[in-house]
């Protein structure tokens, strides 16, 4: 069954408090038992405690699938880019290195690329993905457009990102300020950007 169209995934990286609940919950997912697909990094540990949880953004034109020599990565009709098909994946690492968001992981002993499939076993039957169901700060949020507009009145979902000369559109939306211009968010412009201090408790978590 496809993921219901009205249900969308919204991420607000700045809200992450680094609790690792998503990392642990992700290992419970039936499609990749015991392995977490969340990528949770410290941005710049020398200067900040800020963490960034990255899940698959489910690109409209997935670079990971295009560069796969084994044609092992497929996108379902609901726009979810599935993890590698087990009989086909030859563990070449192309997808791991080509994904513009740095999402896929390589399970070396299994000779298999694994990545977030938006908890397809859950979302395809109308449940929330594991990570979104446990995220205490709702940096990872799965719900309807109406819900997010009500909960985050200062935010607007964006899903066009620029990497050098390439623009990538995604199924998962990032939350940007309401007045963000309609252009694609330039990711590579942040190449030498210093980490930005944020007052999480006062300004963000109390937003709602």
């Amino acid at each position: 069954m496809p993921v219901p169209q009205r249900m969308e995934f919204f991420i607000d990286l700045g809200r992450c408090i680094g609790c690792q609940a998503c990392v642990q919950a992700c290992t419970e997912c039936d499609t990749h038992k015991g392995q977490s697909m969340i990528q949770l990094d410290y941005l710049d540990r020398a200067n900040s405690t800020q963490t960034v949880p990255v899940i698959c953004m489910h690109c409209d034109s997935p670079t990971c699938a295009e560069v796969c020599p084994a044609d092992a990565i497929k996108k379902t009709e609901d726009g979810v880019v599935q993890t590698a098909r087990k009989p086909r994946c030859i563990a070449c690492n192309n997808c791991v290195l080509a994904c513009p968001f740095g999402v896929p992981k390589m399970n070396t002993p299994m000779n298999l690329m694994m990545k977030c499939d938006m908890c397809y076993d859950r979302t395809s039957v109308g449940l929330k993905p594991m990570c979104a169901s446990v995220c205490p700060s709702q940096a990872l949020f799965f719900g309807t457009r109406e819900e997010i507009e009500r909960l985050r009145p200062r935010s607007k979902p964006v899903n066009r990102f620029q990497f050098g000369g390439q623009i990538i559109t995604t199924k998962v939306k990032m939350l940007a300020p309401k007045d963000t211009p309609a252009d694609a968010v330039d990711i590579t412009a942040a190449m030498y950007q210093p980490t930005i201090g944020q007052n999480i408790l006062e300004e963000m978590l109390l937003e709602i």
Partner: protein
Amino acid sequence: MRREVVKAAAWGVVVTLLLASLIVLGSRNLSHFDAALVAYTFAVLFATFGLTYRYAMWLQRPPTALYWKRGWQVFFKRGYRARNIGNWFKHIFNDIVLNRFIWSRDRLRGLTHWLIMWGCILAVAITFPLVFGWLHFESLPERPEWYRVFFFGFPTFSFPSGSIFGFVIFHGLVWASFLVIAGVMLAMRRRMREEGAVALQLFAEDFLPLILLFSVSLTGLMLTASYTWMKGYAYDFLAIVHAITVIFTFLWLPFGKFFHIFQRPAQLGVRFYKDVGQHEEAAICRRCQQPFTSRMHVEDLIRVEAELGYRYEINAPGVEHYQWICPPCRRVLFALAQGKLWQGRRGGVDLGVAPPSPPAYVNPAIGEGPLGQEDKNNFHA
């Protein structure tokens, strides 16, 4: 017609003709060819065309074409040849004979695949030479109860037809079907019980191959049961049903999951590519200055992405291409770009006090951060 289609069709015709010639040659001008099996022969010839066509089309996709070429180049690379030949035997044994990587996924899955794979290999090793007329048996003139095995028209060993050895040989397909049926049952059990599999499986891709293997094995066993215990009851009907199931399986070979049998050995080339890459110059991330994969891999990906029409080139000095940025830095860039949008509304102090440190996993344990050694290298874990 597109050039790649013509090329793939030409390869299909050449390989099919080659097999047809070998059938004529191996059956000594069809003198040992069993006319009753002619439908099987044509099904195999069609499957050969289809498989070669699909394989040739697959090899012409930009990433596949590049890795096919690179796989051979690194295999014969000076200074690595002896090591590669040794590793070839190791990989064949671990990956193909033992299926170690599948056992790592799950022991029951490993056993399932092992049973199906060895059952099919045994069945193919028996039936194909028989269908092609490459294998036949003759009674010894001096001892009629003894059989001599002829392969490709050449006499080989002989054995008493009523011996235990003879029983084992003549029932080879029965043993093969036992293996396949056991494997199919385990696979079906998993597909009906495991929620992850239930969410992702497709009928044509995942169930049809199992149904076909089961049908072939069961109808084959019914033939044996018919002539052994039921005085040949419904034998002709069963023979036709069995032929239909086998021929449909052959015809399906190029289209569905069975194609992985032919595609999968490409993982050997990938192993050599990664092994040689590890011993050569590493790629250095142009943001955090940490090594990640091999330089060769990054340069190859830049080529493949350009051929596919992606434009990840970057004007920033010293970066050139997004492919020179390691995966952890890509994730960080994503967060920094969002932080920049919110600057002035959610805090906004630049924290660039100390030189920026490379990104690091919050939880670097295997299975929670990286999933294995390669992730550790690529993600600096």
